[in-house]
């Protein structure tokens, strides 16, 4: 067990190369850091100094692109963890090669979501007030609590499931690894090594069991930030949280598939085709559930003919937001559904295309859920418009660059696939 020294793996395989910082990787990380740290920081500072008036948000469109991204990313994070914990709870070995990516993705998405919510605050300098004067009745505080707990669960899940790889990395006498990471591996494997394998396995299972309802809860609470508000009738429906969960599940699985396919291609990650097409099939058969929820919502609105609901529905389906709505329904759901259920098109490339469309489609769905209902007002105010400004697009792009950087950095500390092999 611990006494036998591991054999160095064959060169050029992922097991041997995953930790290497090649000039290409370093250049990519540098570029991402420029955008995701320098541009993000300076643009944010500019926005803070000049006020949120530099965005396209206004008295009617009180929330915009930042909150759309926040909701979207919480969903992606929840979807990823549902897959990962499914692997541990039900022992779905077919998808085990994808679990690690799912765990790292979910942590990355959570961090990005937190940055987006900070971007949306008028006084980010008063963020500490959330800890000093929390008001427990506010769904925003519920979200704050749930996100914190969830981040801890996701972190624990990642460390526990990667414990063998960390121990392996600390035992491997690799020359050329930097001191920082060597120290991390020694400390982490020392701490994780105190757990007996049986105990660690048990803890992993319990954490995975907690992560599953946690993922449902975190996205439900995010839905309730909108759904408990009666000022905007199209949010104020009981189906909002279930609708959020199903969108979270399909977008999370889709993002996982896109990232897995990219990593397989560019990092020689050993993921078998069946894992990808198998999960693609599950994704395909989850899409009808999303259709069903949307249909239940639309039918209730159309049959009821309540003015506020109907007005919002018009804005959504034939008004200013019609392109977004039809994109999310046709390109984002229907087309990927067809690609994924037909066995002939369910190849790795097909799954890649379909998953990309699903991710984009769910993003459009988030725009549709947030903005048209938000911009409905009961009293006769002049109609509002929302057009994101360059500041918002720049910040959005830079937070995504920041996310890519975080993912890449974690993947150089914790491998994206099990490299230690099955030693039991």
């Amino acid at each position, binding site marked *: 067990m611990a006494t036998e020294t591991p054999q160095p793996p064959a060169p050029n395989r992922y097991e041997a190369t995953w930790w290497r910082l090649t000039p290409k990787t370093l250049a990519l990380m540098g570029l991402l850091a420029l955008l995701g740290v320098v541009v993000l920081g300076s643009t944010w500072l500019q926005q803070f100094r000049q006020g949120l*008036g530099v965005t396209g948000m206004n008295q009617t469109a009180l929330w915009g692109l930042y909150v759309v991204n926040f909701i979207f990313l919480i969903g992606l994070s929840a979807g990823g963890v549902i897959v990962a914990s499914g692997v541990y709870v039900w022992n779905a070995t077919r998808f085990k090669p994808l679990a690690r990516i799912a765990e790292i993705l979910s942590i990355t998405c959570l961090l990005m979501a937190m940055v987006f919510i900070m971007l949306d605050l008028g006084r980010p300098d*008063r963020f500490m007030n959330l800890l000093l004067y*929390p008001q427990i009745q506010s*769904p*925003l505080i519920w979200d704050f609590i749930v996100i914190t707990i969830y981040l801890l669960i996701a972190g624990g899940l990642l460390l526990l499931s990667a414990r063998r790889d960390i121990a392996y990395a600390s035992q491997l006498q690799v020359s050329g690894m930097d001191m920082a990471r060597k120290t991390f591996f020694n400390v982490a494997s020392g701490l994780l090594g105190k757990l007996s394998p049986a105990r660690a396995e048990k803890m992993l299972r319990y954490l995975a069991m907690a992560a599953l309802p946690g993922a449902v809860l975190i996205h439900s609470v995010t839905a309730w930030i909108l759904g408990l508000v009666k000022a905007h009738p199209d949010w104020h429906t009981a189906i909002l949280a279930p609708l959020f969960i199903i969108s979270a599940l399909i977008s999370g699985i889709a993002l996982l598939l896109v990232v897995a396919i990219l990593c397989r291609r560019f990092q020689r990650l050993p993921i078998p085709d069946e894992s990808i097409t198998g999960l693609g099939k599950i994704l395909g058969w989850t899409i009808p559930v999303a259709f069903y929820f949307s249909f239940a919502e639309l039918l209730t609105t159309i049959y009821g003919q309540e003015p506020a609901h109907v007005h919002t529905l018009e804005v959504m389906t034939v008004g200013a937001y019609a392109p977004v709505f039809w994109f999310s329904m046709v390109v984002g759901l229907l087309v990927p559904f067809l690609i994924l259920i037909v066995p002939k098109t369910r190849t790795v490339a097909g799954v890649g295309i379909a998953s990309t469309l699903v991710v984009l489609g769910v993003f459009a769905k988030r725009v549709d859920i947030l903005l048209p209902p938000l911009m409905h*007002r009961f009293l*006769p105010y002049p109609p509002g418009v929302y057009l994101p400004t360059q500041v918002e697009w720049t910040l959005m792009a830079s937070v995504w660059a920041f996310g890519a950087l975080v993912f890449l950095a974690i993947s150089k500390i914790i491998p994206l696939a099990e490299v230690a092999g099955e030693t039991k």
Partner: protein
Amino acid sequence: MPKWGMVIDLDKCTACQACVVACKQENNVPSGHLDDAAKARGEVHRDHDIFWMRVLTQAKGEYPKPEIEFLPRPCQHCEKPPCVSVCPVEATYRNEEGLVLQRYDRCIGCRYCMVACPYGVRNFNWHEPEYPMPQALSPAASVDSDGNGRGPQPRVRGIVEKCTFCIQRIEEAKRKAQAEGRPLKDGDVQTACMQTCPPTAIVFGDLDDPNSRVSKLRTDRRAFRLLEDLGTNPRVTYLSEG
């Protein structure tokens, strides 16, 4: 303990906007931002202007008998305010006299209260507020239990502000009554909008006093409240022959 309330007679209102101006002066409500004015002339108009009191207009009817309706809209000071429970940091609260107030120094600017308010009475400082003539700022002051300024206290960018039913005038009237050794009587407190209204369409007073003018007007057969179905129980009542 008084229960402050307001009655607005829409049959008297001429939409002269005097209440809007008086409110802006009394409460140091910042004027519009030059950037926004430029944007309004040029490209897309982004509504960044702040109004604690605003007159809304709605066209009704068809040619040849078109009509326009006016609705002066202060904060409704709901008895069950949806804005208060959603605030994550208790920056907004309802005091014991039923006023819904804002703590400028605590607000983190998430705008959740504005999203939750069905009446759209809350305002965000999208820019650093500009007070072109600082010497002309209203000196009226009000301080909360933590010693922080509220009401007319000049604001900073990135926070939410709203109508307070002129809390500084309520406090001033109480001080005066105490100095004279008498209880508050009806008419002691006049909000800025009420004081300036030429056709006296706005009446403010104590709803706990059955003989006050607001209490009597509130039971008028023309009385209604905005969006009553939402169960917010506004303390502002409107009168209209409708």
